[in-house]
């Protein structure tokens, strides 16, 4: 099978797990004998990359923050999210040269994803769009606030295979106006490393409980909630809890200040950003992962990674990973507030929660979440898509014409209304 992967970022030009996962899946598919070419964006600075099948050609605009694209960020955002005929032309060249059996779409923000996805659809190419977040909604968010029309119209135009990492993500896209047509399947995020060694012992008192927070220090990840929970326990006189924080981000200084305000200096340590391997070492060391992320978290890979090492996650009820690992069986869910996480920790500290049982079952369950197993399903999705009938192909000439006219329309609608 010939797979053309289209993604905004691709390692080593990477900012997060979405594109790291993309590279992992590309490697896995190649390992299975498939020819995979990657079409991605030109990085702002050169990256070391010896892979001739990674084509770093697409124009990418950074528009998530209006401050990054002054003075007319709406103009930049229109090209970044909606339509860029230059990128459509680059897609045409790669499709014509590589002749893929299926196009594998990933995160398309920044590279005019609406026009790229529509071009693939109109060309009649089979496609699978791997959704690690609400990308179709992001791409169509430039309209009137609260108006879901663009999202609805865009998604209703697309008739391929959608692969989402949780039903919660599918529901969020639907709430944003997205109507995913064609085939929608759920596939979890995965662990790319071999299974971790079996943990033999779990915390049963006698030393402080070692809690871990791992990931970006952003407000939505809720590390402040974990700190507040520790503060509540300390107020109850329970100081036998420690928290190691791995990661960095915009909330770092605020969190450090909060530690001081809550007088938790003796219980909380910041370790900064670590390599994936060092982070996995922390999974081995910690007893519990605290993950008070936003309920809309599409998956929450860190909880899966910790579980693989026998580290029991306490996570926000309803976030994506709780669709795959069960509360009270593999992990613990809590309401997303200090009281909820404090209560969950209290149950662990008082022995009401069987940490060993959760850890053992969780570690066993994660075997099905390793890349080799998940890729079996994803490979089938790609093969099925490649074999599925597609609508007749629109000529590339017309597709490019539509992209160019679309640019002028988008500019007048979203940037310079009459």
């Amino acid at each position, binding site marked *: 099978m010939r797979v053309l992967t289209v993604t905004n970022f691709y390692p080593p030009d990477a900012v997060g797990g979405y594109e790291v996962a993309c590279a992992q899946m590309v490697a896995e598919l190649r390992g299975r004998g498939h020819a995979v070419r990657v079409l991605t964006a030109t990085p702002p600075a050169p990256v070391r990359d010896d892979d001739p099948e990674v084509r770093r050609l697409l124009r990418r605009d950074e528009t998530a923050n209006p401050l990054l694209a002054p003075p007319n960020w709406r103009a930049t955002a229109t090209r970044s999210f909606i339509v860029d005929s230059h990128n459509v032309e680059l897609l045409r060249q790669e499709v014509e040269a590589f002749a893929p059996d299926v196009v594998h779409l990933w995160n398309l923000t920044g590279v005019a994803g609406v026009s790229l996805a*529509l071009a693939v659809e*109109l060309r009649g190419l089979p496609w699978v769009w791997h959704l690690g977040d609400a990308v179709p909604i992001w791409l169509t968010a430039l*309209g*009137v606030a609260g*108006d879901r*029309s*663009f999202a*609805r*119209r865009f998604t*209703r*135009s697309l008739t391929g295979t959608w692969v989402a990492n949780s039903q919660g993500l599918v529901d969020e896209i639907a709430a944003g106006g997205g109507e995913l047509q064609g085939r929608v399947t759920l596939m979890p995020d995965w662990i790319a490393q071999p299974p971790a060694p079996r943990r033999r012992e779990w915390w049963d008192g006698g030393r402080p409980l070692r809690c871990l927070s791992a990931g970006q220090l952003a407000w939505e990840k809720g590390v402040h909630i974990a700190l507040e929970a520790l503060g509540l326990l300390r107020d109850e006189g329970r100081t036998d809890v420690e928290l190691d924080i791995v990661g960095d981000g915009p909330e770092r200084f605020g969190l450090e200040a909060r530690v001081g305000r809550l007088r938790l200096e003796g219980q909380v340590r910041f370790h900064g950003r670590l390599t994936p391997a060092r982070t996995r070492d922390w999974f081995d060391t910690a007893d519990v992962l605290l993950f008070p992320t936003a309920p809309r978290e599409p998956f929450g890979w860190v909880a899966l990674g910790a579980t693989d090492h026998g580290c029991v996650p306490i996570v926000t009820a309803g976030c994506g990973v709780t669709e795959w690992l069960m509360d009270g069986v593999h992990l613990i869910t809590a309401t997303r507030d200090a009281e909820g996480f404090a209560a969950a920790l209290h149950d662990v500290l008082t022995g009401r929660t069987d940490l060993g049982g959760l850890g053992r079952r969780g570690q066993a369950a994660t075997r099905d979440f390793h890349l080799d197993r998940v890729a079996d399903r994803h490979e089938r999705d790609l093969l099925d898509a490649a074999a599925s009938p597609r*609508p*007749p192909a*629109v000529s590339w*000439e*017309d597709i490019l*014409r*539509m992209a*160019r*006219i*679309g640019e*002028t*329309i988008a500019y*007048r*609608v979203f940037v310079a*209304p*009459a």
Partner: protein
Amino acid sequence: MHVAFTTPATFSDIRGGGERYPLNLARGIARASPGNVEVELLAPAEESSRHPVEAGVWVRGCRTDRRGVSGGAAVSWELIEAVTDADLVHVHQVFTLLGEAAVLAARIARRPVCVTDHGGRESTAGLQLGLLDLADALVAYSRFGAASLGTTRLVTVVEGGVDTRFFSPPPAGTARRHVLFAGRILPHKGVDLLVSACPPGIPLVIAGTPGDPGYLEELRRLAGDRDVTIVLDPPDEQLRDLYRTALAIAAPSVHFDLHGAYWAHPELMGMTMLEGMACGAPAVCLRTAALPEYVDDGVTGFVVDDAAGLAGRLTELAGDAELGHRMGAAATERVRASWDMEVAGRLMLDLYRGLVGG
């Protein structure tokens, strides 16, 4: 078959042939195949609405969030959505933002698209970037209109679209006293030229919607103490009465108006001229744009080259009632046979069926 017409006009205010043509065409299509075809005219509006015009014809206002922006510059998601629900889309006033968006929406939804230019070219982006090449069929209502598209592609010409059930000759013996101009009162319509050319003693009636207050004032000044009556925004019944009592329907449109401004497409058909002819008035038109295509010179009226020619033919008709009657009758016959809206509807429907079936 469900056909969507997109147009910038809301149809709450039919101002000229450019607006009346799509509406009449829709009615003609529905009448040509009763019960089998539904035509929905979609136009941007402040609020959503949908109401029937007659069997098989609906007018739908599609809400746009761009308050204060109207017509072809407005884009409505509701309209785009409605486009994709149709079996076929006919985009009127294609050279507008709305028209361009409708063509794209239809193509993305893989719906057959027909396009028609009505002369309003608010946007040239699509024209420059090959918008017409995205259409499955190009439709014009005159050979002049077809040529003005500037394309080497085949353009289907569907002429006319007159409601001859409504616009019909008066009872025998009705007196015809005045020369009539009907239409939007704008400089490129050449009304000033008609006022100057109209021979003394022949009453002139100017009926229509004033599109340019300054021009209207100039006309009043030019008329002076001549026998000129200006009727603003006449309802259709009054307009029909004016047609029925006209000794000639004049169409004096010009490429260069009295201010020297150039108009590339001053008339793509001349709907009011055809309506007047349907009511038994002979036509007198300038040899401008599409107008000569609709007047069989010397049979259904006269085609002239300038004000002097206009004055001469109007004098001739005013002085020869028999000539006027004969030409008027021929004009009515010609409109009924060739340019009735059901005739146009049948031709259009044949084209649509080929596209939907294909």
